[in-house]
């Protein structure tokens, strides 16, 4: 039996926020706040005085690069990064090489995850074969192999009939469909938000409508098919309004936002710093405010890292020629805490968006610490000030603009099924 002693337990699912002891046995929570019955003494104790204890974080969009791009990162390297960040479950999109459109690839990912023995990895299956938007992927077989949802990545299914069929088929089996909405023609070869900064820098813009046009089309087909749908990494205020309205109409839709969209805007691209090159692009201050508002009013249910580790060469070129993406696992929680510090979000709201809420979207048995729940746990010191450096960064991808910026709040322990898989030195 393991005892986590005297920590501030925040468990949004059970609306719990109090300093108490947590008892774990056989990988599950057995008692909260009182000594469990029976005559067993803890074999191990973690003193969590002054620390916050939460369900293990669930990152709803994490690019792991394996299989196919192991020069950037591997399941092993990124799992280590995840547990050092309090993230116990990662949901990875099907955009590997080969893509996750056959049970073999899904099983390969799960085998590697199991061999690594750190974080839980939940693959998302492809909606169409090869993400080519022509034929349906074998969703049912993929589901049996462990895929928790289906997506076409950022490859738009521009043929609306094919998209309709995908959604109908997914609805038949009550599968969750994840959209990364972007109209490919409107986005074109763009690399940043189309506004005055883009005009000044002379880069090719991605207008807001590249997202809203696709959100609108997807919502209409979701309405027709009744499929469960989730919009990943919304970047514009207008899209969040559309999703909120759809929810009000009774559609079963949810949304998440990448943490960097809550803190950064297109103005950060002044100076052509390729570390700010992300897709969907960082948008205006108004968009950022709109995303925050949607988060607080529950229009957006989850925050993700949209983790995209890169090798150094991927970012060393003129801006448009660099590859988009931020390595974000290790800064997910500290950047979230920055929003709490700025009083834009309460601490329990933040934890909810990182635990119970994504678990509910994915319909998985995680993200809470009630009696009998799986003991995936994140423990962090909310006051510790630190900086991420290329040396202490665990992820193979060092591509983040957050490097060298003072961060407040650091993970001290991570447990998976009651086993300590990470402990800060």
């Amino acid at each position, binding site marked *: 039996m393991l005892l986590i002693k005297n920590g501030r337990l925040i468990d949004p699912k059970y609306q719990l926020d109090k300093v108490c002891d947590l008892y774990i046995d056989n990988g599950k929570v057995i008692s909260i706040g009182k000594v469990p019955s029976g005559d067993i003494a803890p074999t191990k104790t973690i003193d969590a005085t002054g620390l916050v204890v939460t369900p293990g974080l669930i990152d709803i969009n994490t690019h792991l690069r394996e299989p196919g791009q192991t020069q950037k990162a591997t399941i092993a390297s990124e799992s280590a990064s995840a547990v050092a960040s309090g993230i116990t479950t990662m949901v990875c999109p099907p955009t590997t090489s080969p893509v996750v459109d056959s049970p073999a690839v899904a099983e390969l990912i799960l085998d590697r995850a199991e061999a690594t023995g750190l974080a839980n990895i939940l693959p998302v299956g492809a909606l169409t074969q090869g993400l080519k938007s022509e034929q349906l992927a074998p969703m049912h077989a993929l589901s049996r192999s462990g895929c928790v949802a289906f997506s076409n990545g950022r490859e738009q299914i521009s043929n609306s009939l094919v998209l309709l069929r995908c959604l109908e088929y997914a609805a038949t089996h009550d599968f969750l469909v994840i959209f990364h909405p972007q109209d490919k023609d409107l986005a074109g070869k763009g690399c940043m938000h189309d506004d005055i900064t883009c005009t000044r820098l002379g880069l090719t813009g991605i207008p807001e409508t590249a997202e809203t046009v696709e959100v609108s089309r997807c919502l209409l087909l979701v309405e027709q098919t009744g499929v469960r749908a989730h919009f990943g990494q919304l970047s514009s205020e207008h899209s969040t309004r559309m999703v909120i309205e759809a929810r009000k109409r009774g559609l079963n839709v949810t949304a998440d936002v990448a943490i960097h969209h809550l803190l950064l805007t297109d103005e950060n691209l002044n100076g052509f710093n390729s570390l700010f090159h992300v897709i969907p692009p960082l948008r205006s201050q108004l968009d950022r405010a709109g995303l925050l508002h949607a988060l607080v009013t529950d229009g957006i249910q989850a925050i993700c890292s949209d983790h995209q580790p890169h090798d150094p060469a991927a970012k060393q070129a003129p801006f448009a020629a660099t590859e988009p993406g931020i390595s974000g696992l290790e800064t997910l929680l500290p950047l979230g805490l920055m929003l709490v510090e700025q009083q834009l979000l309460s601490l329990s709201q933040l934890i909810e968006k990182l635990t119970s809420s994504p678990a509910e979207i994915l319909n998985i048995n995680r993200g809470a610490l009630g009696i009998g729940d799986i003991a995936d746990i994140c423990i962090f010191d909310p006051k510790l000030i630190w900086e991420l450096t290329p040396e202490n960064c665990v992820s193979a991808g060092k591509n983040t*603009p957050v490097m060298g910026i003072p961060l407040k709040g650091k993970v001290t322990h991570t447990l998976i099924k009651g086993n300590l898989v990470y402990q800060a030195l």
Partner: protein
Amino acid sequence: MFELKDAYSVQLNQEGQLKHFITVEGLSRTLLTEILDTADSFVGMGAQQVKKVPLLRGKTVANLFFEASTRTLSTFELAAKRLSADVLNLNISTSSTSKGETLKDTLQTLEAMQTDMFVVRHSDSGAAHFIAEQVTPNVAVINAGDGRHAHPTQAMLDMLTIRRHKGQFAPLIVAIVGDILHSRVARSQIHALLTLGAAEVRVIAPTTLLPKHIEMLGVRVFTDMNQGLKDVDVVIMLRLQKERMQSALLPSESEFYHLYGLTNEKLKHAKPDAVVMHPGPINRGVEIESAVADGPRSLILDQVTNGIAVRMAVMSMAMSGQTSEKNNLVEA
């Protein structure tokens, strides 16, 4: 928390002197005037018996052109030679290279050859900026055009041409006409004109050829040519690329010419002493009528002559800014 950077501080040394020339944006009026004054002193040189000054003697200048160009490349070459530099011309077609890795590799190779200055043209916006951040200290980078971002030497030669004909910038209304969206020249001209104090800068184009929120740069936007030309002192025409028709930005060359092509008829709306400029190469009958291009109000050939002088000015100033930074480092 996340410090907002500007795109232009990289080009100045600690004393505020030019050490690279990447963009006009963010440079002071004093500095732009210094460039024009320095260039002015070089203008007459072409007519002299000895056309050289020793300002860059012993220095090696590499013209690194990732995008085809004959005019800009040859004026840079001539400018470097008149400053007594050794010149290396490299025409590197982007089609044969695979993006950024190669750019970085190319740079390292050239740096190993102890090059003192890179003159760079590249199809990606921000390329010159990227190179300036990558090069070892004391190597100067001159932007000879990067994507749609900036073409600062072209803008400054246009400013020199305007100043030599009009004297002052303060009373001038300047109209820039045509494909503003894809134009690095227009962006640099707008920054230069506004910094130098022109009374009003206008852009005239159909909405498909205007970048988003261009008015926030401080220009007035016109979609009607005749209204836009009313009372202007300087008309700058931009080149229209043929590809624009294929990408559905315009219906046809003839429709564009009908609406935005500069003819003597349309020029009547401008001031009687208005001058006409064009960065070249000209598409006669697409953006400008031959009678205007070759007419008495055209300054197109003056622009070419002034181009050499301006390039000499910025090359010598950037090299001097690098040297002074180096000396300061040694002293420190």
